[in-house]
């Protein structure tokens, strides 16, 4: 059965890596390389301009953010599928890739023919994760979900006044300014903020801010400043 040719754009921070991949993939039947780029923006631009079936982005090379490339390509809203190349057994990158919308994941320990198989698989509309990493991926995603549920639960335990104080804390106001703004005494603000940190299970207002943004808590609880 003849394979339908998959057109591909490559992205990664190392010219030599892309050149040899271009060469090795290009000589295999069923694959046509439309171009490659060593910058994230350049890769995204090439994908936008050439509409390949698949974009292959490396996420294991220094000074190059393959996950960002994946995210940006997916944001284009075009049908291009994305395969992320990551280190062997690098579960964190795999989870980031899946969260960024990747359709497939290949490790650098795979062979060129494995990659070709993955290209065709995602081109057909399937997903591709190395079988050995599938278990840990699912566990990781479940774990993330659990953490997220716990975060929501903790936030829900904050009182209305505490939520108001938290919004100002995250905005970077000091206790005195918050007190004036909310018509409270600075002492009360301090008590509120201590209780907030305890309830959220964090140790500083900076950590509280990270916690809020990481789990997108304000918008999920309908607290907006806009």
């Amino acid at each position, binding site marked *: 059965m003849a394979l339908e040719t998959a057109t591909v754009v490559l992205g990664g*921070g*190392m*010219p*030599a*890596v892309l*050149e*040899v*991949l271009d*060469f*090795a*993939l290009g*000589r295999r039947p069923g694959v046509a390389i439309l171009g490659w780029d060593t910058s994230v923006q350049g890769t995204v631009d090439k994908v936008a301009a050439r509409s390949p079936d698949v974009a292959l982005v490396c996420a294991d*090379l*220094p000074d190059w953010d393959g996950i960002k490339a994946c995210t940006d390509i997916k944001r284009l809203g075009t049908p291009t599928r994305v395969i992320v*190349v990551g*280190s*062997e057994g690098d579960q964190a990158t795999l989870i980031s890739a899946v969260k960024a919308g990747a359709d497939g994941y*290949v*490790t*650098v*320990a*795979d*062979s*060129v023919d*494995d*990659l070709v198989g993955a290209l065709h698989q995602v081109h057909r509309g399937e997903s591709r994760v190395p079988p050995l990493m599938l278990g840990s991926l699912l566990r990781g995603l479940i774990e993330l979900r659990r953490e997220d549920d716990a975060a929501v639960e903790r936030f829900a335990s904050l009182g209305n006044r505490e939520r108001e104080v938290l919004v100002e804390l995250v905005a970077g106001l000091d206790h005195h300014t918050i007190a004036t703004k909310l018509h409270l005494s600075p002492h009360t603000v301090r008590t509120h903020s201590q209780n907030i940190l305890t309830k959220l299970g964090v140790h500083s207002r900076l950590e509280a801010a990270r916690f809020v943004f990481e789990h997108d808590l304000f918008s999920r609880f309908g607290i907006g400043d806009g």
Partner: protein
Amino acid sequence: MHLARNGGGPLEADQRRILVVGARTLYLQALCEFLGTTGLSVSLLQPVKLRDSSLGPSPEIVLLDCAAAGVALEQLIAEIREFHKGALIVLLTSGAAREISKQAAMLHADDWVSMSLPVAELVAVLDRGRRASAARTPSSRRPSRSGPAIESPLSSLSERELSVLRLVVDGHSADEIAATLGISRHTVRTHLQNVMAKMLVGSRMEMVSVARKSGMRPAPTAPTS
């Protein structure tokens, strides 16, 4: 281990054998396929299989991927030296130039090349390695690279910094160096701090070690033999 020329005829001597060692199969396999078209005999080997490869003919060049997962580079280099005596060891890296040159010098590799350069550059380094291999003497084992892209750890040092470093390598104390060069002790200290920063080393011991491995010798009055 000198199987390369034991009666294989002229073809055998002509065989340009490169052994690529590393765990990043995807990139290295693609690299091997590419190099294969340039008239080289290239084979790819997992680091853990290095021991088994000693039975075959020794390669002219071993291209060792620094991202060799899970195995210490030093140990790999020692194994290559043991199993493939006479082979040039070229490190394949993806880091920044200064970091690489230091690493290569520390590890006693013969040369290095970065994946962040175009692949033509990589082929050029291997070619140079082959020529060096043909004219190789036992004492010539040091980085031979002189191109503009990758420098010696010492190349960014000023003349003054080099002379201070040379005196340290020679075993002089800060006071002696100050007296010799006619500068204050404090200035010597500042020079050395700058030298250490430029060489990316964390201690004076490491500084001397890297300097020596980069080819700096104690300033002798008589030539060593």
